[in-house]
């Protein structure tokens, strides 16, 4: 057992209102620069939809992630030899139109235009070429709220039955906020010929070393989530940095901090680094269980011992015990990885949404009064859709999670209304009374301090005296790493 710590974000999709506040705060801090205008390290897309960049889930096209090759994992895109041969022209790389041509408006004209008969207008211009754009062709959330659903939502690869979105009575939608997943088995890192992308040992954040990156561009397509971006100005790859300058000092990421719906949780997970590859080798439908098995119980003395041996500080161990992420992902098992079948072992988790469940169940009030759990096949959001998104196609797992969430809702509603609340509803879904109370609090009124338990980096324990000796001239740029 090789116990390591990872800092992880959980998203409660039921509560995302699609306001894009998270994207904006991220953009303002990190990507408001020349060359990065089109990048949204945090983006929010509408599902069903084709997302940003367009069709990112289509791995036939971009060749992202890993595939099983016998009992080995290999990159879907290119082996090492072909990587060298395709260095000059990277065949799978997304191009700017797959995102959108970034634009701004010529606001100066509003004040500075010569006097004339017409109102001056602020015309759109391209932030790349500087040329005027007559008609804007795309944006980071072009298919927001199902707009143009016949072109966009209909091409969502998770949507097996396209008819669902053609009629108002069966249509559904939800939001999907996405950041880099800071995967345990990152395809981006594996694809980099310069070895510029690395995972930090202490907290698992995946970063691109700008000094080492030579702009070979393999990572931009190898990441199945399309979360490595190419900066056209610097000629280098960039990605979400999990706000490490904030997180290192115990502050919350900008996106999570600003989240209006309070849908996000950040905390520590302990995992077994030795078992990652074997876990990723499971069949699609078993991947969620494999994920859960990788995550270790922070209260187990053997795990704590292993973690200490690897230099995980005490404060991190304490945080791991209190971690809201551990509770949601492992203990209550309601948060699921996004597209686990890409096999990068992503380390952000999503609580699937329930939303318009009750309205199709017939008489809403009647249902609630009886405290019943609707049959899962009557859910407005098809279980199969969620399974394709969050469990590698395993509908059983989605059903388990939904049962828990519905039971929680039914039970707590009864209790809050002082109606007879039947704990049997909970037992059936695999919850107990004490756990229900905790899960309820986490999903509803949990304070900032409960949702974000982020231990700072313990710089004082990381050989500061050694680093002080070394860092004099600013040219010591050796890539350290391997294990």
């Amino acid at each position: 057992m090789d116990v390591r710590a990872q800092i992880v974000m959980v998203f409660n999709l039921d509560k995302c209102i699609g306001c894009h506040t998270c994207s904006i705060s991220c953009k303002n801090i990190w990507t408001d620069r020349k060359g990065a205008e089109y990048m949204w390290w945090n983006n929010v897309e509408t599902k069903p939809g084709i997302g940003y960049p367009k069709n990112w889930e289509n791995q036939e096209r971009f060749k992202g992630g890993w595939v099983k090759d016998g009992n080995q994992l290999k990159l879907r895109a290119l082996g090492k030899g072909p990587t060298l041969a395709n260095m000059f022209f990277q065949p799978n790389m997304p191009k700017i139109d797959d995102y959108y041509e970034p634009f701004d408006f010529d606001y100066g004209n509003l004040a500075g235009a010569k006097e004339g008969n017409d109102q001056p207008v602020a015309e759109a211009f391209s932030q790349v070429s500087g040329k005027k754009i007559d008609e804007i062709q795309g944006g980071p959330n072009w298919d927001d709220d199902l707009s143009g659903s016949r072109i966009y939502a209909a091409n969502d690869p998770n949507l097996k039955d396209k008819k669902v979105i053609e009629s108002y009575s069966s249509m559904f939608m939800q939001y999907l906020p996405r950041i880099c997943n800071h995967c345990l088995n990152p395809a981006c890192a594996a694809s980099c010929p310069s070895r510029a992308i690395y995972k930090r040992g202490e907290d698992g954040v995946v970063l691109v070393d700008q000094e080492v990156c030579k702009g070979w561009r393999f990572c931009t397509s190898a990441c199945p989530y399309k979360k490595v971006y190419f900066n056209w100005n610097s000629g280098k790859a960039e990605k979400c940095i999990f706000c490490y300058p904030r997180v290192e000092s115990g502050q919350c990421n900008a996106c999570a901090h600003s989240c209006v719906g309070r849908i996000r949780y950040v905390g520590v997970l302990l995992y077994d680094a030795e078992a990652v590859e074997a876990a990723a080798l499971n069949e699609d439908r078993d991947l969620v269980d494999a994920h859960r098995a990788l995550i270790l119980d922070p209260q187990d003395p053997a795990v704590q011992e292993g973690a200490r041996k690897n230099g995980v500080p005490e404060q991190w161990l304490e945080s791991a015990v209190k971690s809201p992420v551990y509770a949601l992902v492992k203990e209550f098992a309601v948060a699921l990885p996004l597209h686990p079948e890409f096999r990068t072992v992503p380390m952000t988790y999503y609580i699937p949404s329930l939303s318009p469940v009750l309205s199709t169940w017939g008489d809403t009030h009647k249902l609630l009064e009886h405290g019943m759990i609707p049959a899962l096949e009557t859910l407005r959001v098809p279980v199969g859709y969620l399974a394709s998104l969050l469990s590698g196609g395993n509908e059983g797992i989605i059903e388990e999670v939904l049962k828990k969430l519905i039971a929680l809702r039914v039970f707590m509603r009864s209790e809050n209304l002082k109606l007879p609340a039947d704990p049997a509803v909970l037992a059936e879904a695999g919850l107990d009374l004490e756990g229900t109370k905790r899960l309820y609090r986490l999903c509803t009124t949990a304070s900032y301090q409960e949702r974000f338990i982020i231990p700072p980096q313990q710089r004082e324990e990381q050989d500061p005296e050694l680093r002080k000796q070394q860092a004099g001239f600013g040219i010591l740029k050796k890539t350290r790493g391997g294990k």
Partner: protein
Amino acid sequence: MLNSLIFIALPYMALALVLLVTPYRFLSNRLTWSAYSTQFLERKMLFWGINPWHYGIIPVLAAHIVGFAFPNQVKAFLGNQETLLIVESFGLGLGLFAVIGSLVLLLRRANSGMLKRVTFTGDWLVLYLLLFQAATGIYISYFLRWGSAWYLHTAVPYLWSVVSFDPQLAYVTDLPLVVKLHAAGAFLIVAVLPFTKLVHMLYLPVDFLKDPPLLYRWRSK
């Protein structure tokens, strides 16, 4: 005059620049050490330019270097007429690839509006130089036959005399003008190398061939 400019001044200037500026840039500004890809903004023409260019120029350049490093072995290898013919035809073909490639790349820069803001003087300089070099190369290879053989008896001993700081111009003064220009182009390319994106040549990403897929970095290990 022209001879001493091309065969004494230029090579030593190029050598001095490449030997001094390259390490300086490596130590002081590694952030810009890349090929500065523009595939993200324009890929259709790039495909038809960048692939022929690289696949043409790499073997041709390698052949020049091998000839310089192991003249005797190469002489022996080319001793027979058939081998020489095959090598020459391959060289000509690859050279054509390089010319077409660099021409496409040049036109691409000129025609694509998207590339305006990522195109600098250095890019034009490099593209013109490379096109010139490739074009004089195939001219020589076609009109002044058996260059791969006479290169070994003229330019190679001259180059050795340069690197041993005793330049012997006698080897090269009688060469046709186009060959002299080809040599001048080569020295210029070496001279601008440390200042332009050509530095990407000096970095071969081969470490990853033996590395494990995942790379961890620890602050404290």
